[in-house]
Each structure stands twice: as C-alpha cells, then as structure tokens.
C-alpha cells in the first residue's frame, strides 16, 4: 500500500474516532439533571429529575448524594436542600408553583425525596420545572449547588 493512501486512511479513521468520541460524550452527559463538585475528599452530587408517569401525572425528584447522586460516598455532617420548588408551565405561563419541604439529614451520604401530582393545564407547549438549593456540610466546609431542571411535558 502506498504511504499516501496509508496516511489518508489513518486520518480518516482518526476523524471517525473523534466524531464517535463526541457522540459518546453527548450520549453519556447530555439530557440529565445533575451537577457535582469536589467536596470533603469525595464528590458532592446535586440531582433533579422530572418524570412523565402518564400524560396526566408527573413526578419530581430531588437528590443530594456523596460519591454519586445515589450516595455510596462518605457520610458528612449535613446533607439535603434548603428549598425545593416545582412548577408546571403551559404556553409561557406558570400554572402551578409549589413549594415543597426542605430536607436536612445528618451523618449520612444522601438525601432523596419525590413529589407526584396531576399536570394541571392543557397547552401546546408544556413544561415541568424543578428548582432548589442543595447543601452539603462537613466540618467547617459548606457548598451549595442549585441546578434547575426544566423538561417538556409529556
């Protein structure tokens, strides 16, 4: 095989590899609802999720976790969230805005809660929203993370 063909073929393969790397990154990272930060020798995760159970009912989830968003990391002094709000939006207007309970758990590595309700409006453009401030405390250290998750319904 001529060297020029080999080089061209190699570049082609490397190009395809780079494209696939990009696609894989998007498949793994995009579309979800968590953020994280190094904390207390591990990683603190703040996650939210909105789930369409049926076209009438949806569920909001919130989770603070050490090591992963499902826990598994070291227990810390305090973990949870200082506020948790969920909302429904139809055609540019918020039709329900609900303030749910804050949560603070001690000496553990995760906190989780969910809320289920009927979707209270009909529209052509419908969204569910999930916002809140996650808090992690260990020793004198404190971090806060407040990712908001907004998702088209249903």
């Amino acid at each position: 095989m001529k060297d020029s063909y080999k080089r061209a073929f190699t570049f082609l393969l490397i190009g395809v590899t780079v494209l696939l790397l990009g696609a894989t990154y998007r498949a793994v990272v995009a579309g979800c609802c968590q953020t994280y930060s190094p904390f207390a020798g591990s990683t603190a995760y703040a996650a939210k999720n909105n789930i369409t159970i049926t076209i009438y009912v949806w569920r909001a989830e919130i989770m603070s976790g050490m090591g992963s968003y499902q826990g598994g990391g070291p227990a810390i002094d305090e973990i949870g969230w200082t506020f948790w709000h969920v909302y429904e939006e139809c055609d540019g207007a918020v039709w329900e805005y609900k303030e749910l309970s804050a949560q603070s758990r001690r000496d553990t590595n995760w906190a989780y809660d969910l809320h289920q309700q009927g979707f209270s409006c009909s529209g052509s453009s419908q969204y569910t929203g999930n916002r809140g401030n996650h808090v992690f405390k260990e020793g004198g250290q404190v971090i806060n993370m407040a990712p908001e998750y907004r998702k088209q319904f249903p």
Partner: protein
Amino acid sequence: MESKFRYILFGVALTLTTLLGALVFSGGQKAQAGSQDTSILGSTENEALEQASFEKLADTAEEKLSFLSERQLLIDQWAEAVAQSPGWWHVVVRYDREDGDYGTLPNGKTIPADALGERWYLLNEAGVVESAISIMRDLDGEEVQFATFQDGTWRHFGLNSVYQGDPPALTWEQHLEAGTISSMTRRELTTDNQQSEVQFVIRHSFPPVPLDDEGGETATGGMLVETYDGKTGQILRGEKVLLLGGNEQERQILDSFEYLVFERVQGLPEDVRHLLDREINE
C-alpha cells in the same frame, strides 16, 4: 513504516470498537426505556403501564386508530390553514380549574384557579413562531405574569428566569399514542348557530399512581374531552380529568379551557409591544 502503520491501525480500530459498543449499549438502553422516563432510582413502574395499555389495546385497535386519525387530520387542517397567514396572531383562552392552591410565583403573585391566557405569536413564512408574548390574567383582567420568546430565548418574568428553548406552537399539538388509550368516543355536535363540531372523549387507564396533593388519593386513569370545529379543524374547548377511584364518578378536573379568540392581527398593541424589550433582572 509498515509496522508503525499497523500499530496505529490496531489502536484506532480498538478505540472504534469500544466506542461503537458504548453507543450501541446506550442506544439499546434508550430503546428499552421507550417514550417513558426512568426514575433516578431506576423505577420499573412505567413498564407496568405499557403492559397494561397493550392488554387493553387489542379489542378496539382499529376503531381507536380511525378516531385518532380523524382527530389528527382536524389538527393538521387547522395548523396548515394558520401557517398560510404569516404575521401576528392573537389568541385568548379561558381556563377553569377546581378551586385550590396553585401557589405563589417568585414575583409575589398568587396563581388563580381560573384565568385568561392572552398570547401573541409572530409566525414566519415557514410556519414557525419567531416571537411570542404570553400574559396570564385573572378573570378581573389583572395581570398575574407574563413571558416573552425571542431568538430562541424565553424570558419568564413570573419566575424571574431566562431559558433557551424551542419555539412555542401556535396551534393545538397534543400527540396521543393509540396504545395508551383504553377507549375512545366520537360525537358529532351541532351548535345553536348550526356550526358542526366533532368531540372526542379519550379515556386512559393506568396502574394506580399515588398523588401527594390529594390526601393519599390514587389516580387510576384519566379522560380528555376535546371539541373541534368540524369544518376548520380548530380546537374550540377541552377538558382534562383525572380519575381517582377507577371510575368516572371520583374525578378531579385538572383543567378545562375554551378558546375565546383566535385571530390574525395587523400588529401588536402598543402596551404589549414594549414587553418584548423588557429584560429579566436575575
């Protein structure tokens, strides 16, 4: 050179195989999930829903498909007619909900149970909404909140937030899957002024879903009532009902709505136009 090339080739091929494997695995997981979502905790609740729906589908599949097809034709007919007239459109919808606490917005305004949704949409030649203004008013006409959409950005003044998003739809869009419908009724109505209307009553049943707002009540189904103009295909009014006890007697009306205005206008009123210039102070 030959040997170096083989090493490069082997390395690249190995990487490609790994990446393809990862993508196929990821795609397979998504396909299994179907159109439903999965909980953070990995709930399998939705699989049960799909199964129950398919069991109910078999007996009346053809009839349901026929009604659904007619419904979609009406929706498409109206959407195509509207798309022929680019420019500003003005829409007013009256919403009626059961009395209850729908919360207070970050802007301090209480969300009313009954409200008017007044909206303006700028439709381009391609039938896509370029700009929009959405105002919610209470039935006394007092503004509760408003939002604007321009250049792919929503500015929600009630939420005090900015989001990137798809253009809103001007005409009714509610895609329904035949497989999730337990039964469907079609009615032909004639109004006092001899306008023909087509009404669909679409019933869904699903495994019990506990609700946090209904004092431990469990939703076991739902019902949509949609009424269309039989001639133009425009949706005129609708109702969305949650069935709480497995029958149509125990119900919670999530929402009922009626289109009061759907008109092509020459431009925006001056008191509305200035809203497009407003910015969120986050």
